[in-house]
């Protein structure tokens, strides 16, 4: 008792002031708001320059407010009151409707401007044949694994060697949109069928879904080719946007009848937009003099601001994304699976993991220099398949392949450089996804007598797949915005649509940089660049939104 004299105040229990806590809390709030506000203001500023909403008639705004905003808010409010997740269904379907056409646009650009449909089709067939052969081989039980492997390799090589050439020289071929429908529509229909079969737990439903999807794609293509839309564009739209939306609607209608009302939301939005557009046209209200319009997205760059467009840059970005995903995903996911599932917890693996984590933080310009030094300069004459070091003493000619792919500023080098840049991110995020698969599931698999390979294939990868996809898409989103590495490898300021892998690279951030540095007139700075920035941001947000939605669904399931 005597020890507790008033003079001895124990740490932490002295006079407590609430002020410090309150100040701290509001300081944190201020920091949060400041960050969000700064980004928000920037975005609004840019979007305002690009779209210029205040140049529209007040009547135009009023019309759309009445036909679009008010009904949407009303329906949204009533849905939120209903519960049962119908508002979420509404928002999801609305998001699908908004985002999938963007992806369809991207794929359509690929087929319309970069890859000839026949070439893609021939390679798709050339890959489908060995795939079918492998599936068939797997069912035969009499043959040993090595024999199967050899057979599969022979079929694959032979198919890739002969089939594309054969198909490309067949005298009579289907029309282009039909080729596209077969190339992407058929696999999409198969996936839709598999999804439906799993979702309804009924094979018949799966078959119907697959046939309906394929039929829908073909009808879409036919309608498109007969109307002004264009066969290829309509086919791609039906495949990439139509099939997922259809599948989503079917799932909701059949499996969640209580949430059906949610589908009202996209209908109201679509209806409101159409009605508004109709009214505005009949009454004659002028819309905003938006710089960002269809012509901007679909026309070539130009010397004059009025006719400058972002299409070649868009096409270039899409081509880069294609290369980046083909190059970095298999390597990155492979490395992640190895590190998580096979490599033990040795000092070496820890060293590797620390290094990967550090590589993820290396500034992008350093990767650009790596691309310049290694890919553009050292490999300029091609990959040394039979290097001079070996060939010269033997008195033979050294062999190098792919000389035109490597070199200053080619699309190929650009794509590989960006792949290197995001590879650590892909590896780390895939590792996280794989790690989050509960160990008990692996143990269960082992307990059933499965081998490690079977466990990885049948348990770990399917479970981790959404997480892996989320991380890789976010990494792609980073790659699409990169400028510095491309500038360092010698990307041009003015470019066309890349026709080959050996063309000079072009991309949206490069185009914006070029506009910001080499163009002379003020209009570029106040209108063209904001419009370009909005296109770039929309592309990035579309990709990120898919990643976020995937992550959320994945979390709910676990």
């Amino acid at each position, binding site marked *: 008792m005597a020890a507790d004299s008033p003079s001895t105040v124990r740490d932490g229990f002295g006079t407590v002031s609430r002020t410090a806590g309150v100040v701290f809390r509001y300081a944190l709030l201020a920091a949060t708001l400041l960050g969000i506000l700064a980004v928000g203001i920037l975005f609004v500023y840019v979007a305002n320059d690009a779209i210029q909403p205040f140049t529209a008639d007040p009547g135009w705004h009023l019309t759309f407010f009445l036909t679009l905003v008010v009904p949407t808010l009303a329906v949204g409010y009533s849905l939120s009151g209903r519960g049962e997740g119908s508002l979420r269904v509404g928002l999801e379907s609305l998001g699908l409707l908004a985002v999938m056409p963007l992806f369809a646009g991207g794929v359509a650009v690929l087929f319309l401007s970069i890859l000839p449909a026949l070439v893609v089709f021939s390679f798709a067939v050339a890959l489908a044949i060995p795939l079918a052969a492998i599936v068939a081989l797997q069912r035969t039980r009499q043959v040993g694994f090595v024999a199967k492997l050899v057979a599969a390799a022979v079929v694959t090589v032979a198919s890739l060697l002969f089939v594309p050439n054969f198909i490309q020289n067949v005298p009579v*071929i*289907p029309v282009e949109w039909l080729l596209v429908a077969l190339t992407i529509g058929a696999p999409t229909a198969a996936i839709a069928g598999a999804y439906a079969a799993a979702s309804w737990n009924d094979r018949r439903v799966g078959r119907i879904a697959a046939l309906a999807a394929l039929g829908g794609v073909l009808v879409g293509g036919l309608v498109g080719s007969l109307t002004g839309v264009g066969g290829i564009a309509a086919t791609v739209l039906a495949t990439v946007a139509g099939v997922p939306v259809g599948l989503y609607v079917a799932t909701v209608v059949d499996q969640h009848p209580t949430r059906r009302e949610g589908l009202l939301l996209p209908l109201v939005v679509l209806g409101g937009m159409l009605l508004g557009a109709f009214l505005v046209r009949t009454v004659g209200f002028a819309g905003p003099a938006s710089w960002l319009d269809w012509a901007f997205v679909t026309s070539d760059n130009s010397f004059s601001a009025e006719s400058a467009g972002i299409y070649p840059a868009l096409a270039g970005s899409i081509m880069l994304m294609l290369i980046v995903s083909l190059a970095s995903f298999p390597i990155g996911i492979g490395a992640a699976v190895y590190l998580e599932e096979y490599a033990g917890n040795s000092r070496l693996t820890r060293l590797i993991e620390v290094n990967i984590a550090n590589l993820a933080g290396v500034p992008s310009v350093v990767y650009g220099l790596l691309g310049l030094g290694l890919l553009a300069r050292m490999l300029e004459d091609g990959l040394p398949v039979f290097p001079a070091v070996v060939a010269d003493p033997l008195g033979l000619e050294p062999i190098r392949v792919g000389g*035109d792919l490597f070199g200053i500023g080619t699309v190929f080098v650009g794509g590989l450089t960006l792949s290197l840049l995001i590879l650590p991110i892909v590896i780390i995020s895939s590792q996280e996804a794989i790690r989050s698969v509960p160990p008990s599931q692996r143990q269960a698999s082992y307990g059933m007598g499965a081998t490690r390979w079977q466990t990885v294939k049948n348990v770990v990868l399917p479970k981790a797949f959404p997480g892996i996809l989320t991380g890789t898409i976010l990494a792609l989103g980073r790659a699409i915005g990169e400028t510095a590495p491309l500038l360092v490898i010698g990307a041009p300021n003015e470019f066309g649509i890349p026709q080959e892998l050996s063309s000079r690279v072009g991309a949206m951030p490069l185009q914006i940089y070029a506009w910001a540095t080499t163009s002379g007139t003020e209009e570029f700075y106040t209108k063209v660049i904001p419009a370009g920035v909005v296109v770039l941001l929309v592309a990035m947000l579309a990709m990120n939104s898919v990643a976020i939605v995937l992550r959320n669904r994945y979390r709910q399931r676990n």
Partner: protein
Amino acid sequence: MADNSSKRLSRRKFIAASGTAGALALAGCTSNPNAGGGDDERSDGDSTDGGDGGGSTEGGNSSTGDGNSEYQNLSGEINVAGSSTVYPLAQALQEQFTSEEMHPDVNITLQSTGSGGGFQNYFCVGDTDFNNASRPIKEEEQALCQDNGVNPVELKVATDALTVVVNNENDFVDEITFEQLYQIWSADSDASTWSDVNSEWPDEKLQLFGPTEASGTYDYFLETVIGEEGPGMRTDYQATENDRTIVQGVQGSQYAMGFFGFAYYSNNTDAVKALSVEGGDSDGAVAPKLETAKSGAYPLARPLFTYPARESLAEEHVAAFAKFFVEQSTNEDIVANQVGYVPNSQEEADEMMSTLESAIQEAQG
């Protein structure tokens, strides 16, 4: 079990799908433009690797004739680097050349690297087909090109008036002499304020913006104003290869000065004020204008060039673009009105064309 059923399912589905697809394919067929003619791949325009490439006479581009008229259906890549001064001209011309009416399948890329940067890092090592320059090629660049088997063909494409600009608010100077420019820009001058140059000017710090050493504009200014044997340019100014930055720098500060090609000034006449220049054998101070540059009265008038590599001219589409460049160099509308340089006279263009024709003939054998 589940595995088994999915296998059966996929087989049946495969048959069904391929059957449907086959039937539809039969319904909508066209003849294959590729078939028969063998391998009809787009001729790869990237002649740039392998500097000794003279042998790339694939020439499969249908029109092997003499024709000015039948350039149709050319395709391939043309890579251009070099001067930021010539860049807008090249940009305007490439837009015309690759337009729907001319050669939409030709892909021309442009890179603004500065004349010297372009020669050094791109053109003379065989990475580009053309190099734009706002000064003639130097001997050491010529030698570097030779070492790599690249033969530059000099074509004058326009005349520029290098323009010295100051801020709009600057009311104490309208004209400037070579001596004053020397005092402001040379390495051995210790002028740090305007009054150091002329005691009537205010005692304010000079803020200087100019091109980098990679730039032909830098080289020309150095040679003309400071002298080749002179002390060189001072180094404590804001150097940038981006003319826009110079405009913005000068715009932003009342006591700033900068210089660049006339095209950037003609696009920004409201943003900055151009000075009349007196020097060389000029008759008093002369304002930078297309007319004074053309007549030669403006002391900082200079020729602009493009250098195609003779090896690249072996390819039809590169030769066609080079010819187009020379043809259009007399085009008043593009060169003067859109871009802001003095077009070539007809005689100059004819002379350039004959240089080019003989180079093309040599290249194509």
